């Protein structure tokens, strides 16, 4: 009884360390590069994988042809490059009037992966070499690695899907900013089990 207080406190601390190690035990080589992901960042960073889109102009303009990719999925240099060449937007013309182009570029840059305190933003950034300016989220090293176990026939060869760029087709909560593996449902296939 006398040492109860000490035992309880010690157990709590041990418990905290153990659960913290479970969290950082997550196998991911992009954790500890430039942006440190120590115990406390893991525990106290935002719950969502990436900041969800809250800008209605962005959603309307950039979400009208494809999924409204969250700005936190690419570095600001990528967004600037993309927004500077909308006439050649992946073989499409996505031109905007000047005012809209400026407003959207601002939104993208301000919410880009560079300084975002969200897990996927940090890991995408850490996976990029300093001189790369990817325009495709699906070509970032982090993305590639996270999807490299999926056979072609389930995506590219899947008539209900066709490409990795349709995030929300499999990641049912993508629009909310959540890309948890448990929530993945591949069209025509079902739950992903690796």
């Amino acid at each position, binding site marked *: 009884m006398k040492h109860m207080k000490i035992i309880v406190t010690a157990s709590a601390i041990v418990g905290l360390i153990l659960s913290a190690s479970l969290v950082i035990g997550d196998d991911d080589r992009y954790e500890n590069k430039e942006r440190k992901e120590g115990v406390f960042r893991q525990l106290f960073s935002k719950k969502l994988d990436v900041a969800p889109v809250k800008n209605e102009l962005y959603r309307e303009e950039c979400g009208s042809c494809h999924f409204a990719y969250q700005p936190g999925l690419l570095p600001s240099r990528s967004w600037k490059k993309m927004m500077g060449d909308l006439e050649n937007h992946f*073989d499409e013309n996505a031109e905007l009037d000047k005012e809209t182009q400026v407003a959207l570029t601002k939104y993208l840059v301000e919410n880009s992966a560079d300084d975002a305190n969200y897990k996927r933003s940090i890991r995408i950034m850490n996976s990029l070499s300093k001189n790369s300016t990817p325009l495709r989220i699906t070509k970032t090293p982090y993305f590639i690695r996270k999807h490299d176990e999926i056979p072609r026939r389930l995506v590219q060869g899947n008539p209900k899907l066709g490409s990795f760029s349709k995030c929300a087709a499999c990641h049912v909560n993508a629009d909310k900013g959540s890309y948890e593996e448990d929530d993945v449902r591949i069209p025509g296939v079902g739950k992903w089990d690796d």
Partner: protein
Amino acid sequence: MKAKTIISVLFVLGSQFASANAVDDMFSEYKKSGVTNISEQQGKTLWTKKFTNKKTGKLQSCTTCHGNNLKKAGKHVKTGKLIEPMAASVNSKRYTKVKTMKKWFKRNCKWTIGRECSAQEQADILAYLIKQ
């Protein structure tokens, strides 16, 4: 009470005019550019005409994304994203904003035909679409 009713009725009527005005504004601009005869038939012909994509060599037209039935949703040819129906009779949001119409005309003519549509072409197409 009566005055309020009259004012609200006028408001509702006025808002109907606001939507109709967007299309009227577009036609006024076309007329200012020298367009005199506007043909729905020509608009339909252009809408369904097939052009060769210079990059891919594939044939494409407005219907490639918008589908053959304007009262039904279309699908983006690349991303598969749903495109709401073009027919005003089923989609009351269509043809209500000049800015929006201009944006899509500019982009989509450039992609489909390889250049911007002339004022005549736009007028014909718009005349065809608003009747669907």
